[in-house]
């Protein structure tokens, strides 16, 4: 009997169940809607407008990448899988079968996280790549180069935060959805220091900071922080959320499983 083998089995089980879950259909729909939106936008451009790459890049950045994609698409895609990863097992009560196996609880949670991460990152990163390709080639190349790191870091941070939600709350998907669509949006748009509690503030700060020289201007009240600080804070969100989730998960009695 090998603990490592059991752990790898659990990671694989997580990946397999998430890919074939109804959530995949749930996230494909908003991603397809984004694709249609960009496709229609590009085809409605006037010929003279089409050659103004700097203007297209700024519009694509402000309207799509920093607003629609960062504020809504990334958190929704991340929560669809991250809350289901352990929250689905909790709601369906199958978590019980995992907790009675001789795998330390910290490793159970780590397996869930590691099983979820590649799905979320490849789905969000891959769809972002696809959306960029709808734009003219110079815009696509620049957007990918500037924004992909922020997109990936935000995805990882959201996966961590939503795992914490799943460990803490039974109906974590609903709570995470309300949090993403209200708290993240409202907090991230608040003037002053309160917005620093929102994950998307740091992701969007990175985007504004990196794209400033390309004509992308942040709103006056946004007060983006520099890229290194934003990256550090996203790492703090990731590590902090998973550490807290691990502490809670290791100690918690899940009385609602049977």
């Amino acid at each position, binding site marked *: *009997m090998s603990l490592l083998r059991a752990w790898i089995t659990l990671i694989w089980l997580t990946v397999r169940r998430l890919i074939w879950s109804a959530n995949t259909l749930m996230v494909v729909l908003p991603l397809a809607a984004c694709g249609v939106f960009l496709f229609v936008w590009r085809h409605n451009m006037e010929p003279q407008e089409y050659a103004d790459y700097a203007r297209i890049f700024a519009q694509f950045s402000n309207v799509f990448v920093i607003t629609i994609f960062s504020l809504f698409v990334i958190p929704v895609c991340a929560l669809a899988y991250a809350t289901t990863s352990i929250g689905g097992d909790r709601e369906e009560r*199958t978590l019980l079968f995992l907790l009675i196996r001789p795998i330390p609880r910290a490793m159970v949670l780590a397996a869930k996280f590691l099983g979820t991460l590649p799905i979320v990152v490849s789905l969000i990163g891959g769809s972002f790549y696809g959306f960029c390709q709808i734009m003219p080639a110079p815009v696509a190349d620049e957007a990918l180069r500037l924004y992909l790191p922020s997109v990936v870091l935000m995805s990882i941070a959201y996966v961590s935060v939503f795992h914490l939600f799943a460990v803490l709350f039974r109906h974590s998907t609903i709570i995470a959805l309300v949090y993403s669509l209200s708290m993240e949006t409202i907090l991230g748009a608040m003037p002053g220091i309160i917005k620093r509690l929102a994950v998307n503030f740091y992701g969007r700060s990175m985007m504004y900071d990196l794209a400033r020289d390309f004509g992308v201007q942040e709103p006056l009240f946004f007060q983006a922080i520099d890229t290194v600080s934003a990256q550090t804070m996203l790492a703090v969100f990731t590590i902090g959320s998973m550490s807290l989730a691990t502490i809670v998960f290791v100690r918690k009695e899940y009385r609602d499983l049977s």
Partner: protein
Amino acid sequence: MNLTFQNVTKFYGPVIGVNDISCQIGPGVTALFGANGAGKSTMIKLASGQLRPSQGNVNIGEKSSWSTAAKRDFGYSPDINSFYEEMTGREFVTTMSRLYGYASSEAKRRTELALLRVGMADRAARRIAGYSHGMRQRIKLAQALTHDPQILLLDEPLTGVDPGGRADFHQLLAQLADDGKTILFSTHMLAEVEDICDSVLMISRGRLLASGSLSQIRSLLADQPLTVEIAAVDARHVASLLLQMPEVRSVEIDQETVTVRTTNASTFFPAINELVVEQQLDISRMQTVDEGADAVFSYLEAGA
């Protein structure tokens, strides 16, 4: 290997789940018997490391049941009906087996063995979503057996199982007990399984009322009324003699059967033996009718 409860108390907030329970469960079949809400599931959850005691210790062998190490030593069949429904029974049991760290080929071998033991080998290729309640119980039992644990914890394993399945289950438990396994299962239908139990834990309102074999427990209740049916040719004469005995509380006659209620079982039986010899009574049958598990439990619960 023993399962030990040492002064175990479990609170759910202000509500007490089990109250100062101490017992040691060794090899053989032990039934945990009590009404709904008595604390059976709490005890099983404590034993399977799902809950931690508020006070006291629950040990699997020498290890705390909450520890990861203890989880290798027991198999647990929960009372829930939740599975990975999209899997077949075979896939589910194999996956659960692999979560013990077995290589794929070994996990498959153990899965087939477990499926064979629970009588599901020929039906395990179907998806769990289409399984009946009884088949689900068997699959739960199979996943608990794959790693050949020393201790088996079964929470209401007979719920939804048909009579044929129950007979199979009895046979399986007897085999496992012969192999030296410690088996604890909760039930609220003790009368159906008392024949296969080596001992019984009777629990009510979170307290352990009694433990031991049913006859041992019954002997503790010497001052409780016992009902005895006596078939005699001259039932009226037998009844009149019985009424003169100080241990007899009441007598009823129905054709050739006398039903006696006695307050002291330990002196009643020697006394009636003497009476039969002295009076040359023609008695064809004598049996207790309330020595069964349910009656014993009722007495204990009333006295608790």
